[in-house]
């Protein structure tokens, strides 16, 4: 039956643009209310229809009630998420320009398609990870030995994460592996001959880029904002990430202590 309905082209393109904008925002880690608001705003450009959107962390559904053709619905599942502010800023700008009438609908749609096709660049992430771990180790009161080992641990975990991401390993497993390597590097630091070395500071510094601090804070933030469903899902996400990291560190230290006790 649905195939027989010939939608108004403009309504169709408007709907597609709204979905694409929402999908990009959700995928690149925008807040739930921004995903919903952007889609509703784009859909409200139609003079003869009304749009409504409902988003959570793992997907959204959006419906558009056109007085001529009835309801159009779409559901999108967001499984692969990462935080990318440059993309959020671009999508936000396109949607703002579209709603202010500064660019045409077809142009906005084309620009969003371009953003969607663009491949992610991860150049420089290894250095950034090492820098972050080094800085956190210093912030937590570590000396230069701790900072150095934390930087090495961070870079190692970054390499592991990138290699695992290429093979489409789930986040839970890749967190375990990354934390495992951090624990091993931190344990090795005990035997390099540093005079003033703290393994705990190295481990905490090393895992800082991975731990779900922002996720748990965002969970409470979303809950305060009234997005209860999103708050719960973010809280669960934080718990699962923390579980992965803790398991990885636990396994890594257990292995090292087992081996170290036998050999050294």
């Amino acid at each position: 039956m649905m195939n027989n309905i010939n939608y108004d082209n403009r309504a169709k393109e408007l709907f597609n643009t709204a979905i694409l904008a929402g999908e990009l925002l959700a995928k690149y880690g925008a807040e739930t209310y921004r995903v919903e608001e952007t889609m509703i705003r784009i859909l409200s450009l139609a003079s003869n229809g009304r749009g409504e959107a409902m988003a959570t962390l793992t997907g959204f559904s959006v419906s558009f009630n056109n007085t001529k053709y009835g309801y159009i619905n779409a559901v999108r599942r967001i499984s692969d998420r990462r935080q990318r502010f440059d993309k959020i800023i671009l999508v936000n700008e396109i949607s703002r320009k579209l709603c202010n009438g500064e660019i045409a609908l077809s142009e906005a749609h084309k620009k969003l398609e371009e953003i969607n096709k663009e491949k992610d660049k991860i150049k420089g992430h290894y250095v950034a990870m090492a820098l972050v771990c080094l800085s956190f180790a210093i912030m937590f009161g570590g000396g230069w030995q701790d900072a150095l080992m934390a930087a090495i641990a961070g870079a190692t975990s970054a390499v592991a994460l990138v290699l695992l991401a290429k093979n489409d390993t789930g986040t839970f497993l890749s967190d375990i592996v990354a934390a495992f390597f951090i624990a091993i590097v931190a344990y090795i630091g005990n035997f390099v001959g540093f005079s003033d070395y703290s393994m705990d500071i190295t481990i905490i510094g090393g895992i800082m880029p991975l731990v779900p601090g922002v996720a748990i804070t965002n969970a409470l933030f979303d809950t305060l904002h009234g997005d209860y469903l999103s708050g719960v899902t973010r809280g669960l996400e934080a718990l699962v990430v923390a579980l992965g990291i803790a398991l990885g560190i636990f396994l890594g230290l257990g292995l090292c202590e087992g081996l170290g006790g036998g050999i050294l």
Partner: protein
Amino acid sequence: MIDIISQLLGAFFAIFGLSIIFSVPKKYLWITGLIGIVGWGVYLLMGNFTDSMYLSNFVGALGIGLSAQISARIFKLPVTTFTIPGIMTLVPGSGMYNTVYYLIAGDEILSREYMIQTLLNAGSIAIGIFLMGTLFTFIFSRRKKHEYEDVI
């Protein structure tokens, strides 16, 4: 004094690096780093007045919220571009890790203690950012309400 300066520099470069990982556009990396210094600086400063970690986190989050809201309005960007990297020094990521680590290690009492601490810390930061955001939208509410009336 040297200790405090090295900690503040640590906060700056930690946020700077995290902003690179989060793909914040290059010209704003310095701003997010400076917001990180504000957050950690206020947190350290509050340590002189109170023993409560939660109050320090709350006031630190207020400082981050204020500087992030101002930067977002100057550069016309979504405010989360500045708040999320900014709060990275305060957020209880290690607390979350410790909660689960001690649960696995079999120390349930310590795990529970860390869990309560983590939730309260995350709550204080969220409320700080939330309050500042509400205050700014209240003052600068230029947003038009959307109407969803069918025209045809």
